[in-house]
């Protein structure tokens, strides 16, 4: 079973994502801010991370930078899922090494497709 980590501080968004990916037969991990995400990743390496950007304490950019510093962790696929959708934000996200940048509000079907696409590469 593939492992997915959902990182977002909005409980309702987390709830919807959790439901969707459980249905797609993922083992789902949840972190409600960047610091929690880093804790989880350090213990159990997921295959893919859905990562919000604007979060308290440690934000999504910082989480990604943390991942890219480690050889093992940098191989995890990362999808940014954020309401920030200025071109400059998207460019920064991809420059930092995210595999995909999806703007909020998002289509659930498209998001699922992107996840499968990335994992089957």
């Amino acid at each position: 079973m593939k492992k997915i980590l959902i990182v977002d501080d909005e409980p309702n968004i987390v709830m919807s994502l959790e439901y969707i990916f459980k249905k797609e037969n993922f083992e789902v991990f949840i972190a409600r801010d960047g610091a929690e995400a880093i804790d989880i990743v350090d213990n159990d390496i997921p295959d893919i991370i859905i990562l919000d950007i604007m979060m308290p304490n440690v934000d999504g950019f910082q989480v990604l930078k943390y991942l890219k510093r480690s050889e093992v962790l940098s191989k995890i696929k990362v999808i940014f899922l954020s309401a920030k959708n200025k071109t400059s934000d998207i460019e920064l996200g991809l420059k930092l090494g995210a595999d995909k940048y999806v703007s909020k509000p998002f289509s659930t079907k498209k998001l699922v497709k992107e996840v499968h696409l990335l994992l089957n590469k």
Partner: protein
Amino acid sequence: MSSFLVIFVIIIYLAVIFYVAFWAEKNSKSKWVNNPYVYTLSLAVYCTAWTYYGSVGLAATSGLKFLTIYLGPVIIIPAWIILMRKIIKISKANKISSLADFISLRYGNNRFLGALVTIVCVLAIVPYIALQLKAISETFNVITKHNIIANTVINDTTFYIAILLAVFAAFFGTQHTDASERHKGIITAVALESVVKLVFFLVIGVYVTFYLFNGPSDIFEQASILPNFNKQQTINGLEGGFNWFFLIMLSMIAIVLLPRQFQVAVVENDREKYLKKVTWLFPLYLLLFNVFVIFIAWGGNIIFENQQVDADLFTLMLPLSQGHEILALIVFLGGFSAAISMVVISTLALSTMLSNNLIIPYGFLTKYSKGESSENTESIKNIRRIAIFSLIIVAYFFYRSFTLNRSLVSIGLISFVIIAQLAPAFFGGLIWRRASSRGAILGVLIGFLITVYTLIIPFTIDSQLLSTSFVNEGIFGIEFLKPYELFGLQLFEPVPHAFFWSLFFNIFVYVITSVSFVGNYRERNFAEMFVDSTKYGELNEEAYVWKGEAYVRDIKEVLTRFLGEKRTERALNLFYIKNGINKQTPYADARLVSFSEKLLTGSIGSASSRILIASVVKEEEISLREVLNILDETQKAKASNKELKERDKQKDEFLDTVAHELKTPITSIRALSEILLDDDEIAIDTKKQFLTSILSESQRVSRLINNILDIEKLASGKNVLDLKKNSIKNTINKSVAVVKQIAINKGIHLNTQAVSDVEIIYDEDRIQQVLINLLSNAIKFSNEEIGEVALKTYINNHKVEVSVEDSGKGIELNDLLSIFDKFYQSKNQTILKPVGSGLGLAISKQIIESHNGKIWAENRKPHGAKVTFILPFKLQ
């Protein structure tokens, strides 16, 4: 010591200097090249061979007077920093490359004035360069043969050193055509030499003081029994005091106006903030340099008592007389460093002046206005290279053909006096709007002529041992015109005397002429910019007033002749973008004309660039009144423009945040609805949970929208308050009723015992909104079960104070000031976001402020937070 060895050491040393310059030029971005230390050390080019040998000479013969030359700069440094800020700002904005350019620009790009300043500088500095060469040559001879008799030119090592220095200055000084660009190679090398000369001088100082003698007190004791000692070490009453005063004044002027100082301090300045370091580091440098001077001098006087040893050479002769040749070599190298850095920077500065303010504006403009860009830039560089070689060679032959048997110091001081003639025009131009070019020109001319009469002619007569009665009896035997005692003034020594009279007439003529004849509008325009640089400094192109007709095409053609097609295109593009001008506009405006003049200024000087640009544009006269009006308007427009931009930025940020805040609930709504729509097998419980979430997120959206509308309405300041007389206790009770249920649910007690009543005028709904908001926050952050939220009022004659206290964990220090900002939600909230838009406190603040009240938050001891607001009884 064999001269081969000395030459070998010199070559090694020069190779190191060349390499450092080369390395710095190649690594011009390195932090070894760009830092305030290099900048400050390069200012120490002030200390020349004159300092190295001459100070000691002066100290040995005249006691402490040598200090004046260093006290001046130290005293003036704080004012110098302020002045430099202004000068650097103006120079950078106008691409000024030399002192002559600066003065010429201030007086309306005056070509003649620029040339005059150049000539004055060359006349002042060439003998000074000669002096440095003399120092090199004499010390070389002393160290190799123990005497100072010079060889023929062909056999004179100094001649070849001079040529090498010219090569160095020409190679590293003309890397760019634009002379206002920095010469990082040369400056880094000079900074290094400043270290070398200081360290080596300290070495010899310590050697004399502690090795040859037993410390300062030992030297003092031995020196104090020498004849003349006491007379040397005093200021000499009132007369001496005046001499000191004027010598200090003279050196204050010199630290700003010597061409080499202007070069290193202004033209080579990379960042204004470097000036800060100068404040303490430069005085410290000068202090260290002077600490041992008097001891070396006394030591020399003691050891060489009754021997014929030139006091200027004490520094070198002391170790030699003791047989310490290596140490003497070190002294020689230190003095050599001091001399060559002065020679290089001075010739660089003078060659720029010569090319940009004399040769090009008077001889090459017609040629350049027709030539190709590559030919023109090559020709400009060649002019400068030839100028550098000529200056050094002329200086060399000056030293060869005049028996410069007077001390190093006197020639240096004559240079200072000549340079000081530029002071009224320079400083006056920075503080006095009315100062005109005619005044400046006449002032400099008169001052210079008086210096020639009172100092240069008699000095030449003395030093060349010519026999004439001129000095003792005055011209045509008129007592009144004796050069050293002009108009019967007998108070001063020759140098302060010449300084006094020349500046007296210089300033007098300058002021009278400026007051009597008004300068043209152009002068006035620059006068405004120079005098009030803080006001107009940022305006750049816009501060420039110009009226007339010009085609972009013509101006572009002129620019291309110097910058080439690519650079012209690039510069113009940047200019268009910066000013928001359409590229297709065929007509040039004042801004473009001014911008183009500046572009050329660095390469050919301000007067020439003005003439060249003027040749392709048709300019109209503008009255002075118009100049001032336009300047004033641009100033105002600029200010309001800045304000608008600031407000725009804030609005953008607000909209960004609003969009983000709205998207978040909508994202949940969309995702959850899509699941509900697509998934038919969804469990009934889950379905319910999803629908509840959708509902609450929808409410969140509408709450947000209402809040945003509220905040906008309050911010626009329209008559939104419904002001009536109300009872504060009543309002508090109503608000408590609204939140009571939430409090009960959480087991929190609402305490209103400390509430008293008063009737005042306010908008009840709005104040209730504030109270509800504060109460909900207090409940939200209180501990469940044990919490209490207390409401208190405090009433006096003119205001009511209401506070809401909770017993929660309090507010983080970081948050105390920001919690009233829009959308500010503390980073330290629980991970589950509390219900809230992040706008509640911002709205509360606006409501209270529109009642002319105040609201603030603080922490309670031992724990809990307290938010208080004040409502004044009188609204106005």
